[in-house]
């Protein structure tokens, strides 16, 4: 129980609260901020669970980005608002800020091997993130007209 609390619930809670703060900076008014915060928590939970299942963390970032993408698209359709705001804020915990920091640190310390591998890893992480987020939008854009036509 304690492990679940510190390992899963607390990080997701911190991610949500941090993203609520960032939503204010982006001038998201009203309920939108809470939606972003919840999306961030959800995305991080997906990331943690995927890592737990033994997948690599780049793949985990990809999956988490897809989860956030689907969530933001659904919310945007419900509230009839552009999806981009929710997506940007909810993806924030996954953006490799720590990767950039460690890359720089290894560079300053002169650890060339570690520097290069962290740099490439950070690139991969960021690429997985943006491909994942983009994939949901593209797939939904391609599928939705067909689904609507089939439904009516």
């Amino acid at each position, binding site marked *: 129980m304690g492990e679940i609390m510190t390992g899963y619930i607390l990080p997701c809670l911190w991610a949500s609260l941090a993203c609520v*703060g960032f939503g*204010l900076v982006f*001038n998201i008014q009203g309920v939108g901020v809470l939606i972003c915060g919840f999306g961030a928590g959800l995305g991080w939970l997906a990331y943690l669970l995927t890592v737990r299942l033994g997948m690599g963390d780049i793949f985990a970032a990809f999956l988490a980005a897809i989860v956030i993408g689907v969530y933001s698209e659904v919310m945007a359709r419900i509230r009839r608002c552009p999806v*981009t705001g929710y997506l940007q804020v909810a993806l924030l915990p996954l*953006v490799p800020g*720590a990767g*950039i920091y460690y890359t720089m640190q290894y560079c300053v310390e002169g650890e060339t091997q570690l520097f290069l591998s962290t740099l490439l890893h950070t690139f991969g992480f960021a690429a997985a*993130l943006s491909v994942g987020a983009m994939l949901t939008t593209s797939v939904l854009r391609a599928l939705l007209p067909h689904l609507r036509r089939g439904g009516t």
Partner: protein
Amino acid sequence: MDYDKLLNLGVELGRRLMESGAEIYRVEESVERLLKAYGLDPQIFAIPNCLIVSVTTPQGHPITRMCRIPAHGTDIELLERCNELCRRLCRDPAPVEEAERMMEQLSNCRQFPSYVLLLGYMMTTGFFALFFGGGFWDCISAALCGMAVGGCILYGQWLTGSNIFFCTVVQAAVAAVLALVLVRIGVGQNLEAITIGTLMVLVPGRALTNAMREIMAGDIFSGLNRTAEVLLVATAMALGTAIPLVLGQYL
């Protein structure tokens, strides 16, 4: 019909959308739909800092307007209002004067006062410090650093200019120096958590998410532009954080 006013209306909508941080395809699509609703056949071209709209009047007279978009932040509330207005005008095109008045009213959409923005920065950095494994005091220190960085972003424009590279170097350096000082005087313990937590407000999240979306939407040029922005900002962050770390080794 007054085509000059109509063109201005379209450009105004496009400019507002761009300044609120919308993707390029959304800007082009919205302006096109708006002008088509008024019975014109517009040509629109947009890249991240320029918007060109051209229409031909039924008499065969071409009119073009170009608008340069300055460096801007993100304003989701404005984006949503613009989207709503565009949708409404497309559904039933109001007379041009009334539409212009509606467009004017977009300027005074709800904005948070600056203390709420500062609070937002503090919340982001503080909770990200916890997120990256800091303790309670690290959270407090990171919130202080966040306040300093937020102050730089909100009020420091006269000092840093609008060059995004230089801005980010200064902001990252401020964050890292303050984090180092706070750890040295014993307020925080976990230097990494504080610094990374504070850096998260400078991370190019917006450009990163938009870059791929633009490329996939077919705006390769804008996508590459944003990708370059991501690399530039990330390098600037690393440079800014490196300055105090290098100095710290000798002090």
